[in-house]
């Protein structure tokens, strides 16, 4: 389990004179849940877009599942999953159509699409809604389905950008059960969240401040190094420390 799925070294992205990501270096192991935290505008989204092969870095190195983020962007896209709160599924397609559409995008064979779609629908207990439009599904269900679709091709890593924003507290916890299951199956998870209790569910966390990784470690290590009792206080310390 010691294989690194993400490795970055001094990864940097500049937009004109503004440095959105400033020499970030970190790695994520196979099956690890890695929390990617930081204030709004700290550079998380820019970093994620580079790691997904959607944005070329200005300098530095990175590989995702063994693929280089300068040269192999198309291969990276086939080996990752992505899900965000803002956009996940097509509202005017049915449950089944969404699953088939994404499975097709990830280039599964017709036979695989059929098998996995059936399996997924029964695992989520969505048999009765398989032919309903996504927009008629409660949000919590949509989010769980969106996650399952993002890992339907058994990617090496899945990127989750605020996956639990706005969902009810019970569904939020069920969602983390799905994340743990994916990690147990060997899928690495990189997740952003504004819920500080969720930071505790991550194996390791990085905290970005002004484009740099200001701290990295297990939740327990971070709390003890700042001598505080909660991840919120760690966050407060790092994100606002410079103003104090």
């Amino acid at each position, binding site marked *: 389990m010691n294989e690194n799925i993400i490795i970055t070294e001094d990864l940097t992205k500049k937009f004109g004179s503004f440095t959105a990501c400033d020499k970030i270096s970190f790695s994520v192991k196979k099956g690890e849940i890695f929390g990617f935290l*930081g*204030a*709004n*505008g700290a550079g998380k989204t820019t970093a994620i877009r580079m790691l997904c092969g959607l944005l070329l870095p200005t300098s530095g190195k990175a590989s995702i599942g063994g693929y280089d983020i300068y040269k192999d962007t198309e291969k990276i896209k086939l080996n990752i999953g992505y899900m965000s*709160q803002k956009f996940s599924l097509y509202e005017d397609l049915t449950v089944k159509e969404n699953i088939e559409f994404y499975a097709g995008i990830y280039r599964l064979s017709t036979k695989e699409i059929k098998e996995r779609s059936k399996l997924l629908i029964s695992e989520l207990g969505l048999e009765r809604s398989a032919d309903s439009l996504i927009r008629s599904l*409660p*949000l*919590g269900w949509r989010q769980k389905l969106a996650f399952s679709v993002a890992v339907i091709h058994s990617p090496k890593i899945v990127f989750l950008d*605020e996956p639990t*924003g*706005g*969902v*009810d*507290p*019970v*569904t939020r*916890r069920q969602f*983390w059960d799905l994340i*743990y299951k994916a990690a147990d199956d060997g899928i690495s998870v990189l997740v952003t969240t*504004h*819920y*500080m*209790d969720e930071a*505790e*569910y991550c194996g390791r966390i990085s905290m970005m401040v002004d484009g740099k990784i200001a701290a990295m470690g297990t*939740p*327990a290590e971070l709390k003890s190094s700042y001598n505080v009792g*909660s*991840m*919120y206080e760690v*966050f*407060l310390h790092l*994100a*606002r420390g410079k103003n104090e």
Partner: protein
Amino acid sequence: MYSIEVKNIDKSYQKVQALKDISLNVNKGEIFGLIGPDGAGKTTLFRILTTLLLKDSGSATVEGFDVEKDYKAIRKIIGYMPGRFSLYQDLSVEENLKFFATVFDTTVEDNYELIRDIYVQIEPFRKRRAGQLSGGMKQKLALCCALIHQPKVLFLDEPTTGVDPVSRHEFWEMLKKLKTKGITILVSTPYMDEAALCDRIALIQRGRIMRIDTLENIVSAFTGHLYAVRSNDMSRLNFDLKEFEGITSAYIFGEFIHADVKNCPDGNKLLSYLEARDHKDIKIFPVHPSIEDCFMELMNKEENK
């Protein structure tokens, strides 16, 4: 007289019932929180109260004005910050502010005092187009525009969604200051921890209000007996707790699991149960319910109705 009075409101969109028999009163000068997940009906209620949407039945008034008959009077005395950023992206910061002041037949200068504390934070960017601002600055500008005509009632629909926890805290500090100026604030949020910052809250889920009260009263009405539990193997712990005799619920909260157990006055029975199941480094202590514990208990009760 209440600042906002809502009686038995229903609203459906075709087959979907968005609001079911909603009633609530908001006192003058109160910060009232509407707390619930996406899809609970929060935005629908805001749109009815801000006179942008017609209800199916029931009645509602804002500062004594009827939301349908007196919609013109209401529009003059309320400020509304919708969930989606809805200022003019291609106008600058100061142009947006001036525009909203003019629409309400007033000037920025006349009302500057009210927004000063917030506006000074975005003033360095006053020539910048609104579309080019960061999320936090857009939020501050939207609040200034909603306040520029000195409204009596402020409607804020999920002002902190997607905002990091520290900036969220700072936003609430601004609201507390506005409260001291006598403005009534109705604010919605999916972040339950923000309940602590409201005078009173309504917990809303699937179009129905589950409870309206102060946070203190809601927490003390929690009927379970909660312990915070942890061990060396958290995922197995979650599973084992669910099999413990007399358990009502077990939900993970950060590094602990909150277990609601009956007939277990000091936790010793739970401790020996977990030891027998080979858990190590067990920690058990009684814990006060958080707002999320209360919300989940109410959710479960609603579902079993």
